[in-house]
């Protein structure tokens, strides 16, 4: 019997201040007992709303506006909270997206297991403790952490604890909502393996929500692809990889590539998802779709059975109809959109340019004083490398590897404890060390930073024109018409065109990708020699990451800017960088031309980073 049966489910948000929005529109799917189903889509596609609705945890102003949810034969769509409570956690449990915050900060971990277990079972006292110990063993955490407070655990451990908590009552169904987003790749990998193993042993069903198609393909039996509040494709993982039906799925698959190839191509989906608060005619993906035909703009494609799965695409259906291939062409596997190509040749030539920054045997020790005791932490030890003009060097490592500390020293914020950093600028060599005031300002006109989170690095109270004019006024003293022209030029340089349309908008009105473009434009304003980019794409949707990588790559090619690219992701390092430096525990464990390192890693740590990249191909 079907475990979870969702029919024609719609969720509507009705905020007082703005137009109502249908976040989920007539979604139908089912999950069998013990099945592992992936749900992918970009941010704003409604996947988390769908998950929340299935758990009946929607909060106002959101509500289920139509359809039904049947769990294990019981219709729970309108079940009163009192009756629902007995199902919760015993049958339906969950691990949330940001489980950093999903444990009560003032209660010991044990207490948070205990209340759930005692609420739903007859276990009490010592028996509960035994059960918690068992659960900790399952997720491979030392049971001594039972008495810890949540803040005393690392991010990975907290996530494991949340997983253990979800398993506490042997539920039939677990919703995993991006359970490893924000964790280090290696940790992420081991947690997901743990999930898969436990699922195989215990046979619970999973709905796994993620924006990362690689991970989803690695883990799931079947995959649902969601776009603009609807399911556009539903296929088994193998079939989806072999023959994706919907162009959007092809776009998502295209954002992955094998970093070991001589020439790597990754595609991106241009444009942005539609505004769900406005009604639209035709297929919601049509404006971004390279395969669209006339009917796509006129009729909304229904989700119909196709190739053993389901898809909502006119073209896919027509091509597979009898004689369809003659009229509409053979089905295509790839996404014929814009793509970003990186060849190994380009890198080879970059590595012969003159050096703009040399890092010589740099170490950094942090001292923390408390009373008379001093604790020393060696954040970076004996790191040396050179950055050349028009070259991209990737600093790869997980959090705590010292890559951010190194970046701080290179941007002149911190002073190295040992060794030296020399910037070979247009005005001669300059020793870089903990600049302050005027010196830091001067250095900033040569070395700029691009931060990870484009959502919080633009002043929300100012228009983009103003945001971009600040560095121009401060560093070049431009004003009036000249200033306006430069701002427009910058916007166009990062492909925010036509510039007039963006100059008077606010940062929060833009998509993540567009915001990151603004940040890059801001960094370019002072015409720097070096840009230090700290995880510039990790908070962006997979489908648009390539477009930012391409922009950065163009800057390097056209303007001879050098980029120090800080990341934990080897695929993006391969796409962008000519040389890669792998850091672990503050030390350089491996260094060399990117392709060489990726093809033949010498260090175990590099190998574990490579293994952690989901590779469905």
């Amino acid at each position: 019997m079907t475990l979870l049966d969702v029919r024609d489910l719609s969720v509507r948000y009705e905020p007082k201040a703005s137009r109502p929005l249908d976040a989920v529109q007539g979604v139908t799917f089912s999950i069998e007992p013990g099945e592992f189903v992936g749900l992918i889509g970009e941010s704003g596609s409604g996947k988390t709303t769908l998950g929340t609705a299935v758990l009946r945890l929607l909060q106002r102003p959101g509500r289920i506006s139509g359809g039904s949810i049947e769990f294990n034969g019981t219709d729970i769509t309108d079940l009163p909270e009192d009756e629902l409570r007995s199902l919760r956690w015993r049958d339906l449990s969950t691990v949330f997206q940001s489980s950093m915050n999903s444990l009560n900060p003032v209660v010991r971990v044990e207490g948070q297991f205990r209340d759930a277990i005692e609420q739903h079972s007859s276990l009490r006292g010592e028996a509960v403790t035994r059960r918690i110990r068992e659960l900790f063993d399952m997720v491979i955490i030392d049971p001594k952490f039972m008495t810890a407070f949540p803040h005393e655990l690392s991010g990975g451990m907290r996530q494991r604890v949340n997983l253990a908590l979800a398993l506490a009552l042997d539920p039939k169904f677990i919703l995993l909502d991006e359970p490893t987003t924000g964790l280090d790749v290696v940790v992420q990998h081991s947690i997901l393996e743990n999930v898969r193993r436990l699922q195989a042993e215990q046979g619970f069903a999973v709905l796994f929500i993620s924006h990362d198609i690689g991970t989803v393909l690695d883990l799931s039996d079947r995959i649902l692809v969601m776009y603009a509040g609807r399911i556009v494709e539903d296929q088994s993982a193998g079939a989806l990889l072999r023959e994706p039906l919907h162009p959007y799925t092809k776009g998502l698959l295209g954002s992955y590539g094998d970093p070991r190839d001589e020439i790597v191509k990754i595609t991106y989906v241009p444009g942005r998802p539609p505004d769900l608060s406005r009604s639209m005619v035709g297929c919601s993906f049509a404006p971004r779709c390279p395969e669209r035909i006339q009917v796509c703009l006129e009729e909304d494609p229904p989700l119909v059975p196709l190739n053993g799965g389901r898809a909502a695409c006119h073209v896919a259906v027509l091509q597979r109809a009898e004689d369809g291939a003659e009229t509409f062409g053979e089905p295509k596997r790839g996404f014929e959109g814009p793509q970003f190509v990186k060849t190994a040749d380009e890198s080879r030539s970059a590595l012969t340019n003159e050096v703009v920054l040399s890092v010589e045997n740099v170490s950094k020790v942090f001292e923390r004083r408390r009373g008379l005791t001093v604790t020393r932490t060696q954040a970076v030890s004996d790191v040396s490398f050179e950055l050349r003009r028009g070259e991209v060097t990737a600093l790869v490592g997980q959090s705590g590897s010292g890559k951010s500390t190194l970046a701080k020293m290179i941007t002149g914020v911190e002073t190295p404890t040992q060794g030296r950093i020399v910037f070979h600028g247009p005005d001669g060599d300059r020793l870089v060390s903990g600049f302050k005031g005027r010196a830091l300002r001067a250095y900033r006109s040569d070395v700029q930073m691009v931060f990870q989170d484009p959502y919080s690095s633009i002043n929300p109270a100012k228009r983009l024109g103003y945001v971009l004019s600040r560095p121009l006024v401060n560093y070049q003293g431009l004003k009036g018409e000249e200033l306006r022209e430069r701002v427009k030029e910058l916007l166009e340089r990062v492909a925010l065109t036509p510039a007039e349309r963006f100059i008077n908008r606010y940062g929060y009105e833009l998509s993540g990708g567009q915001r990151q473009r603004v940040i890059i434009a801001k960094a370019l304003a002072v015409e720097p020699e070096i840009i230090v980019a700290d995880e510039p794409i990790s908070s962006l949707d997979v489908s648009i990451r390539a477009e930012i990588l391409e922009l950065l790559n163009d800057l390097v090619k056209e303007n001879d800017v050098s980029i120090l690219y800080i990341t934990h992701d080897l695929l993006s390092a391969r796409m962008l960088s000519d040389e890669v430096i792998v850091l672990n525990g503050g030390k350089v464990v491996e260094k060399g031309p990117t392709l060489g390192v990726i093809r033949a890693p010498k260090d175990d740590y590099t190998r574990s980073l490579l293994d952690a990249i989901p590779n469905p191909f």
Partner: protein
Amino acid sequence: MTYFARKFGFFLATLWAVVTLNFLIPRLQPGDPAEIMVKRMAGKDAALDQAQVEAMRAMLGTPTDSLWHQYLSYLGELIHGNFGLSYTYYPFPVTEVIAQAFWWTIVLVTVAQVLSFVGGVVLGAYAAWRRNSRFDSVVTLGSTFLGTLQVFWVSLLLLYVFGYSLGWFPTSGGYEEATPGWNWPFIQEAISHSFLPAFALLIVTPIGWILGMRNTMIMNLGEDYIRLAKAKGLPDRDVALKYAARNALLPSVTGFALALGGVLGGAILVETVFDYPGLGRLMGEAVEQKDYPLLQALMLLTTVGVLVANLAADLLYGVLDPRARRAE
């Protein structure tokens, strides 16, 4: 444990600094208290009689030795609880004057503060839990309205309506004819006299707690651990109390401890309007009369009160929020 030890160390250091400043500041002021007293007694325009001033100095025991010796003897006197004589209530010692006012204020203001805090936090939490309900609207709008009123104005209004017009409560003082002490007639009189001042405080002080608690709790209700608690199928009561309110209470605890510390300063405006024989009124008088010894002692009492409350808040916070213990 180091958390608590460190907090206690800071407390002692600050206490010493306060005591020392309390010694230094009056001595840095221009003017001679003896001269001022003589002037006040003789009238502003009369010429100063040096003999009178000398006599006054002798009487007040104004010291003539070095600052260092003064400091040492000040510390000595402090330890023995000796603050000198009040100018206004001459020849009563400051300690005695304060002791008389002390309990009036402590009982009135502490009771008012505790009731305000408990009531405010409960109302705020419930309003947050039932946010956008009618209850929430009434509480929020009501608090915002009452919050715009000044406490002395509320006091005058109460005094006029319940004291003069209706005559239900006495209009001034702390008691009438009964002998102060543990006897029923006195307690009855004390309660009826403190009713209106307490009422005035209870109208105004909970506002901050209500709005503060409501806002933090609404923010907390959006946290993932609340969603998870609901997903765990815990009863609403548990989610509201153990998860939401427990966390939302944290910021208020510090505020409450500080408010309790402020009790020793009395409620100057309310006590003055009701002519209530507490520390607040006393402080008002001391300022008006330039009664330095009294003022100095009251200041010290207030700051020590705040310091002790601060320490208590820190310690309590350490118990309530495990993150604070490790934060530094």
